[in-house]
């Protein structure tokens, strides 16, 4: 059976939904970030599958930008996590409400 781009799209849909499920279920902010990375990877896989199917390089350029944004997001997000957990070591995701004000 030949692997078409539809297979890639179904796989990345599955990966995206797994990441979304983990994001909704887990309470540890670090693991929630990891699930976010899984969702971003699913989107990257979709971009590359479309880029390959349409023979258009714009999809790969989009993946490049997604990668940069993901790196910036992880840097800022993890520093927020560090800043919160350093003051309140038993914090879970709910305690980020303390950031306001």
């Amino acid at each position: 059976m030949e692997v078409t781009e539809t297979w890639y799209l179904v796989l990345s849909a599955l990966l995206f939904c797994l990441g979304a499920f983990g994001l909704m279920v887990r309470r540890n902010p670090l693991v929630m970030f990891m699930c976010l990375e899984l969702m971003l990877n699913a989107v990257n896989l979709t971009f590359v599958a479309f880029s390959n199917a349409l023979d258009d390089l714009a999809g790969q350029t989009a993946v490049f930008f997604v990668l940069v944004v993901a790196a910036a997001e992880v840097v800022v997000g993890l520093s927020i996590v560090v800043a919160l957990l350093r003051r309140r070591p038993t914090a879970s995701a709910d305690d980020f409400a303390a950031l306001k004000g």
Partner: protein
Amino acid sequence: MVFVVAAAIILGGAVGVIFKNNPVHAALSLIASFFGVAVLFVVQQAHFLALVQVVVYAGAIVVLFLFVIMLLGVDRTENIKAEPLTYQRPAALVGALALFGFILAGLFLSGPGGEDGAVALTGQSAAMVPRLADDVSAETSGAGNTGTGNTDTSNIVELGHDLLTRNVLAFQATALLLTIATVGAVVLVRNEGAEDLVVDEPGTSIE
């Protein structure tokens, strides 16, 4: 065959991220998942992105995760059995399955005249191919022999050309974004006032 193995690695890694109790194990599962995605990038001729996927994602980002996990104390495991909100797990499962169903419906029910989404794709690709092929081969014909051999132009050459001509403004904006992120990280973790500093006595771990 490669697809099936890589897909198994990706999905296994994703399940590991979700269901591992220890954050370190979750990070290692995340690396497995990223490697699987990199393999699929190679299969789809995106060689440069596969390289960047391994170096940046599996290298830099997961190492950053591990740094933070170690910084905060590696023995902080989450009790995965405890359910803080009633019906959170079933609701999340229903939501994720509904999302998957919506995506599959959009994939297989869309497009002109197709129960298969690929019909719409291949119909569009005919218009795209000649323009790009002429464009790229005219620009980069001199650098073609440095490629991987199965294409006449190197993937890196094409991608760099695309990045620095059509997307040069976005490219510079990402440089600004990375600078802002670095400054933000420094500002967020800076200690104002030494009395806020948690003194980590030897022998007492942060609980």
